[in-house]
């Protein structure tokens, strides 16, 4: 085969190969947009749920909520604290 013919044949097959590759890749990634959109909406839904749960958690763990609940359960505030003004005797250490 003459050299110019060889180059033409090589070019032809390269083009064919690239066209096929492009078709395959395009076909493979074409639904990714929809998939990505679904993932995005799932992510947003989870983030929103996380936000709602955080809100509930903070409302329940606030000091005012804990204090109210403690009072409801009968806990009372300690009015004085016990402290040691001198070191305890050695026998008690």
């Amino acid at each position: 085969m003459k050299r110019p013919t060889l180059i033409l044949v090589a070019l032809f097959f390269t083009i064919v190969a690239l066209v096929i590759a492009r078709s395959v890749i395009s076909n493979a990634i074409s639904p990714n947009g929809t998939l990505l959109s679904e993932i995005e909406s799932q992510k947003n839904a989870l983030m929103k749920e996380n936000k709602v749960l955080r809100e509930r958690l903070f409302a329940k763990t606030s000091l005012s909520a804990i204090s109210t609940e403690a009072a409801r359960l009968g806990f009372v505030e300690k009015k004085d604290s016990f402290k040691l003004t001198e070191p305890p005797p050695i026998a008690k250490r």
Partner: protein
Amino acid sequence: MSRKKTALNLPSLRPSPNDKMRWRFKVIFFFFAVAFLAVIGRLFYWQVVKAAELSEIAKGQYGREVTLTPERGEILTSDSFPIATNKVSYLLYANPKEIKNKKNVSDKLSSLLELEISSVSASLSQDKYWVPIKHNLTEEEKQKVEKLVLPGVGFEQKFERFYPEASLAAQLLGFVGKDENGQDKGYFGLEGYYDRLLSGKEGRAIQVHDALGRPVLTRLENENQMVEGSDLILSIDRPIQYLVERKLKDAVELYGAKRGMVGIMDPKTGQIITLSVYPAFDPKKYFEYSPDLYKNPFLSNTYEPGSTFKPLVMSAALNEKEVTPQTRCPRCAGPVNVGGFSLHTWNDKYYPNTTMTEVIQHSDNTGMVFVAQSLGLEKMLAYLDRFGIGRLTGIDLQGEVSPDIKPESSWYAADLATAGFGQGISVTPVELLTVFSAIANKGIMMKPQVVSQVRDNEGKIVNIEPEIVGKPISEASAKVMTEMLVNAVNKGEASYARLKDYRIAGKTGTASIPIQGKYDPTKTIASFVGFAPADDPKFVMLVIFDQPTNAIYGAETAAPVFFNIASDLVSYYKIPPSGD
């Protein structure tokens, strides 16, 4: 021959073929030139003049612009609990042109969302494509509306400020309102001071879609990068803030005061541990409260500090070696006449030949006149400046003010004398707290600060380092002053309330309030400022009651509250007793 010659010399009247060609070339050249210029002109028009407009149209064909609204940063206390965060809320809107049975929709929405039916009907009767119906719907409310399956009704998701601890530290936080464009904007306190940092930066993006409107892989093309708001991590200790607010509320009610406030600071770092004001407001419903409550009086209000100012003047005199704790007052046997004014002690009791330690212990005004006069006007003004009086402390909260100190030429002898016991001179509470932190911290004055760390949207934390703003007095003078203040607590007017077994340095204050140039004897500002433990202070605290009615003196009102809070603080910080 001659005829031939003549014929040869005469110019030809008929155009030669070359001339004809040249003329045609010119016409064609002109035609092409005009056409070429027209094309260039048109291209210039489309590509330069109309470029932006065409670009927008093109974008509209393959995508739609999406505004990316950043989420406002959170404000967290030192235990990482958010005292200002965001929650998801919804704006309910309607397209009146899509709603056929408007009465039915109005009835359903008004009964479900507790809205005035006339208001909903009025909105739906407008000739518009979009009308807001209700703001700040919860998730549950949204679901209830969705179950009705109403045509032409939709929701827009938004973030709304949420305060899990309700009105805790309200004046410190400030609130989020709207600016002139209807955008969120922080006002007062931290929300105002750090508004740009908390807000972040709005972004714009193009959501690319295919011919059927489905989003394609390229997804979003960012035009302006959105930046989420940064979080602020405070030095505020939430349990202490909560505890102080409760005690302050009880005390304001007990003493019938117009207002009360407590500020607690770590003298070694300048970090604010607590800043409480009562009455406060609910930042979520700020519009239901008087705007007078929005300001933080701890930094926005000035007052004459009274006797709590005496340690500043005394420490200046000690530092200048004008007096020592043993120096005796030669003119304390009775009222002192200065510049035509007779200056008395607060209880009209006099202690002849009293020492400087006793002057602080008895809160003796005549003794402080002696100290102020010994110090002299020039040094007095120099020390006021060194302690930062008359300047902003630089605390990172919106609304700080600082009253000016009048120039030296405007001071009279009586002004110097009364300044010695804290009258005729104004300060803000945060200024006084900062002054005391210098005495507590070996003479080193720190800049007060509320935010200790800033966390950006990627989680990167930037520490805000403590800042030294000066050293107004020496360590030795600070130590001597501390001992005088410990003596004042142990033997002074407020000794009945003191915390036994702990060395606490402190000073009471009862300042008269000037009204139209005269002091009203029935209206006072009662205060107590101190720090503990005296030898290695963990906190400096200032308690102020504005116009208490059931008892008007600092020793009767602010002092017991100070020691009550201090009692809880020593337990909280596990500070062992050290004896008197």
